[in-house]
């Protein structure tokens, strides 16, 4: 079993570890978001995620999980309230500053967003090319990351030729390849079988152990049950409770 699954012993270690009470990297103060004239998608969200933390974000379909993640990497801007990432108020960030914010955030998109006409390897390497990494380094790092998600043999295919689960792993590899400070994973195991799900989650735990702050939006109750982490639960745009994973998962299974 990996270091991520909580045992009494690991919990004790963690309690006094260096990430225990760190300064926050993601903070939201009274954040609301509405699209046009529709009823607001997010209402008065307040949250605080510490550096090095691993947080689950759960809630029913349409609750606003994806929207909340989008506010963090500025795919959407909050209608009201303050969003702070690494202490900076991103609500005030100019458009030209967005790319530099995003380079520190790895994102696993729920709908993948792979470039359909570039090879898997190029898709993964893209985040490195953006910062001007030399070609050989890009190649080598991308291949290494693809190996981590078990796709080294598919590196030269185009994404539309991959199975759903394979595409999902490519997106995970892309999010991880440049060692981001923050990783936002939106339903990262929705297309993976249980065995792979465990593998990928363990991978995320390793990354987390190396200092990356991770937020995983998921419906999967078994995940939340297995990895006992702080779990934020959204319901109709409001954060309802901060229970420990087990209870949240139980809530979910019961519907």
């Amino acid at each position, binding site marked *: 079993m990996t270091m991520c699954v909580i045992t009494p012993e690991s919990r004790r270690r963690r309690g006094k570890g260096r990430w225990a009470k760190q300064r926050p990297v993601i903070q939201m103060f009274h954040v609301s978001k509405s699209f046009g004239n529709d009823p607001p998608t997010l209402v008065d969200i307040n949250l605080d995620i510490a550096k090095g933390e691993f947080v689950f974000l759960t809630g029913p379909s349409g609750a606003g999980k994806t929207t909340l993640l989008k506010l963090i990497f500025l795919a959407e801007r909050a209608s009201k309230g303050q969003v702070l990432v690494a202490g900076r108020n991103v609500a005030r960030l100019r458009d030209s500053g967005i*790319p530099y914010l995003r380079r520190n955030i790895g994102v696993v998109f729920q709908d993948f967003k792979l470039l359909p006409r570039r090879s898997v390897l190029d898709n993964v390497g893209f985040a490195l090319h953006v910062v001007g990494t030399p070609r050989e380094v890009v190649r080598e790092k991308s291949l290494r990351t693809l190996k981590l998600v078990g796709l080294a043999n598919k590196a030269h295919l185009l994404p539309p030729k991959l199975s759903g689960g394979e595409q999902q792993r490519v997106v995970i590899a892309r999010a991880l390849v440049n060692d981001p400070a923050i990783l936002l994973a939106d339903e990262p195991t929705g297309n993976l079988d249980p065995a792979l799900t465990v593998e990928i989650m363990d991978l995320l735990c390793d990354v987390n152990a190396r200092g990356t702050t991770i937020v995983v939006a998921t419906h999967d109750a078994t995940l939340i049950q297995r990895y006992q982490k702080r779990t934020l639960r959204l319901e109709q745009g409001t954060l309802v409770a901060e229970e420990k994973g087990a209870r949240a998962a139980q809530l979910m299974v019961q519907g």
Partner: protein
Amino acid sequence: MSLVAKTSYFARTALESLWRSPFIHVVAVLSLAVALTGFGAARVVASQLDRLVESLSGEVELTVYLKADSSDETRAQLVTALEQRTHGKATIVSPEQALARLEAQVPGVRALSKDNPLPWSIEVAVPPSARQAQALREVARKVEQLEAVEAVDFGEAAVDRLEGLAFALRLAGLVVFGLVFLTVVVVVAATLQLAIYARREEIEIQKLVGATNRFVRAPFLIEGALQGLLGALIALGLLLLATHVGWPRLVALLGVLDAVAPAVTLRLAGEVAALGASLGLVGSVLAVRRFLRA
């Protein structure tokens, strides 16, 4: 280091895109080629029209009738003066030559009288460059005031008409050229916009993964310039084909026009290439800008 890496990345990306999704690029290159062919053809046709006007007006001349008592010397001086002033070729026509010409036109004239009543005259063939009605009128007025000169005739009506023709042709050329250029711009802008529209999701994804606008734009610029150059190449090929193969055939077939063959000069080739590259480049910049805002 990072700059080198980026530049080589852009160049590779642009080239890859060119051969990976050839369809879009073929369309863009084709419309650029059509546009540039239009431009080149307009230029060639314009210079042909100028030549046509020149060749049509070969007969414009100034005739200076001299007084009966003019000496050989005066006449020679006048020839020099006229040639200097009009930059044309002046010829002295004796009364005998003039009568011979008249006889050719009106048979029996010579028989009417023993004396030759016709005066000495000088005919000046005016080169096309000096063939403005205004300038000729000026020269005529000045020459008329000279001691030895009786009268000056320079076919004012003909010069006027010719000037009108030349003007009309140039105007038509300008209109056609304007239309062609409008087409060039609209076609190229539309094609590049659409080509980039077809790839808008790619741009969106690149931005989501942390690419700056400049980073997204660069490969499109290189692509645009390359497409422009490729289009120019095709256009020049078509123009050369038209002037070197098409024109002689046409002339041979019809046996009517012995005009000078139109030519694609090096300068024109340079212009077409430069226009192509900048159209592709500017077109791409403008087209991609629209999708970078979001």
